[in-house]
């Protein structure tokens, strides 16, 4: 092969490869590291916003876990320990951008401004997606893993062709990178040079299965390289690094250079959901190791050292938010059972209309005279 061809290839690969070790700006004690100066530092304003959102997000997350234990809501997938990723993702986006979250991304949605009560609609059991995707520019939380990734690609391409410069960000877990939909979406994004950022929150577990049983890749970030997507890995418990890396990724995507895949190394401190029991598959010692890398205490130490943090005030606001949520969730919701027929089709075909009438008759007259017909 000609030398210049090989040199081109080497340059192309080098432009895609992630850093050898995750990008980090704050060590676990909250001290600035000296490395990775090629990413501009996030502003103090952004960091104080991130701190506030992380504390509030964690408090609401704890509130939701408590509500699930009380049986007020269904099994809740906590993102405890992943606040730097959740908040970092939400704060990196412009209002015109789109977020494609999973079921574990309540904190990202709330940080983006979605009403917490609407975020909880699925686990409250009254509906599926509680918020308006167009008003919030947040897709419904995806439960089937990685299936929302290709939606983000299609939406981003459609928007670009309309001359809009929005970016779509997909949130994924480590387990989702084993799904075919993930690979197809990254490939499509690269082929169409779509303005999409894939953020993998590698929280080390897919329910009970640890990362080493999920993938033999040196890092999940390398999964982007084979598709021609620029890739990076970052300390997912360091919000300075997460914000810096995501800002660059979004800028890259927005400027038409194609998608970026970012792997954030983090840890799911809690169970998969409130019905899970992590003691069956992991050691407490491991959890303790990650507790020492906590994203909030790390940021708090850094900001406190610079006099930029109002710990008591933030905690107070978080408590207020939790109390509001408790009060709201306690309220009863009245939903018309026949509404299950409302949006199956734009206009109900005769068979759907007929079944709706049958249900209405049943509701009007329990054990009624409909002859036992469904």
């Amino acid at each position, binding site marked *: 092969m000609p030398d210049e061809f090989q040199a081109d290839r080497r340059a192309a690969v080098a432009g895609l490869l992630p850093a050898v070790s995750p990008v980090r700006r704050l060590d676990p004690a909250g001290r600035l590291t000296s490395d990775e100066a090629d990413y501009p530092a996030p502003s103090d304003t952004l960091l104080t916003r991130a701190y506030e959102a992380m504390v509030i997000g964690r408090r609401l997350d704890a509130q939701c876990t408590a509500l699930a234990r009380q049986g007020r809501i269904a099994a809740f997938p906590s993102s405890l320990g992943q606040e730097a990723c959740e908040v970092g993702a939400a704060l990196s986006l412009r209002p015109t951008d789109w977020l494609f979250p999973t079921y574990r991304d309540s904190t990202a949605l709330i940080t983006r401004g979605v009403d917490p009560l609407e975020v909880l609609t699925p686990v409250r059991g009254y*509906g*599926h*997606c509680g918020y*308006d*995707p*167009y008003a919030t520019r947040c*897709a*419904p939380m995806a439960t*089937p893993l990685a*299936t929302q*990734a*290709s*939606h*983000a*690609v*299609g*939406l*981003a*391409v*459609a*928007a670009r*062709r*309309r001359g809009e410069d929005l970016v*779509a960000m997909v949130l994924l877990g480590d387990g989702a990178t084993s799904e*075919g*939909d993930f690979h*197809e*979406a990254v*490939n*499509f994004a690269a*082929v169409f040079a779509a303005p999409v950022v894939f953020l993998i929150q590698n929280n080390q577990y897919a329910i009970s299965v640890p990362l080493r049983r999920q993938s033999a890749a040196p890092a999940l970030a390398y999964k982007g390289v084979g598709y021609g997507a620029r890739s990076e890995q970052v300390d997912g418990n360091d919000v300075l690094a997460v914000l810096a890396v995501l800002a660059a990724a979004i800028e890259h995507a927005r400027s038409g250079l194609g998608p970026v895949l970012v792997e954030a190394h983090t840890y799911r401190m809690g169970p998969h959901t409130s019905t899970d029991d992590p003691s069956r598959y992991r050691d407490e010692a491991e959890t303790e190791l990650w507790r020492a890398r906590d994203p909030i205490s790390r940021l708090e130490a850094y900001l406190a050292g610079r006099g930029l943090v109002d710990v008591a005030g933030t905690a107070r606001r978080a408590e207020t938010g939790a109390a509001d949520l408790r009060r709201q969730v306690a309220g009863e919701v009245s939903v018309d059972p026949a509404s*299950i027929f*409302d*949006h*199956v*089709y*734009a*206009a109900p*075909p*005769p*068979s759907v209309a007929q079944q709706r009438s049958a249900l209405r008759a049943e509701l009007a007259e329990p054990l009624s005279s409909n002859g036992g017909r469904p």
Partner: protein
Amino acid sequence: MTETMPAPAPAAVRPGAGGRPPDGTPTSENRTMVEALGAALRDAMAADDRVVVFGEDVGALGGVFRVTSGLRDAFGDERCFDTPLAEAGIVGFAVGMAMYGSRPVVELQFDAFAYPAFEQIVSHVAKMSARTAGRVRLPIVLRIPYGGGIGAVEHHSDSSEAYYAHTAGLKVVTPSTPADAYVLLRAAIDDPDPVVFLEPKRLYWNRSPQPDVDVPPAPLGRAAVRRAGQDVTLITYGPAVPLALAAAQAAAGRGWSVEVVDLRTLVPFDDETVVASVRRTGRALVVHEASGFAGMGAEIAARVSERCFHSLAAPILRVTGFDVPYPPPKLEQHHLPGVARILGALGRLQWDDQPDTYWLAGPPPGDRR
């Protein structure tokens, strides 16, 4: 991406329009189903610049069946484009485009090659409207060439309609004539709901094999009576319609007057037309290529017996493919319903008031059904 080419004027082809245009474009009277489908896509793209066509090989090649032939040249690479070879990705991409205002018309190359997209279709395409309380609607058309009878190797001949018909939120359409292919595809593209548009590939190259009864352009959900009759209603759709008409013709020679109902859309199901016919004839036979067990025929037989029980002189019978994986091409004619099997089933509709013992004793010796 290249810039969009100027869109051509809508082709002068309309169902029922007579005369061959000076440019030699096939008219509705002489075109094949492939040409009719292509005309529908072309006209829909010209009428609405939100309509985009994509899938595998739909660009330069014009599709493996040539349905999309010429669309890329006419409308440019942003309106008609090839995708990577990944059906889940294709349908997921369509979901995203539809969320942002496009009206994707996707080609999934063959029935069995659509299965990788099944999760996207069932969990997202079908449910998005209900999941979002109607805020996000997905006006997507999934075109799927389906069915057998073309001598293809395995995985190219499945009748997959029951999977889609079973999934609430989807509309399921299948034409049986070139004229209907045009009308139904235009209606599917205009429809606010996602539509699985099943194209019977054995009829792709047919040129009006049967008289096109006047079918006015209408929203989806109306069946058509293809042949009027008094004694029995033969309910069928898609690839089995020409077969049903041939069987009805043969049955006339035996003194049975068979009414043939072409469903055209499986979902929504046109109970009204079917029920009116069966109540009048008093007998019903369902014919389709797909395996019978838990298939469309089971649903149709149940619906008709629920609604027409007191009009029925005989149980509703089904003539379907066997409950086997689609056979190799040299054997497919034994699997697919044929005129003889349909005539055999017609004969078992208790014309002499004697009970049908077929299911007790099996077919009589020499029975060729």
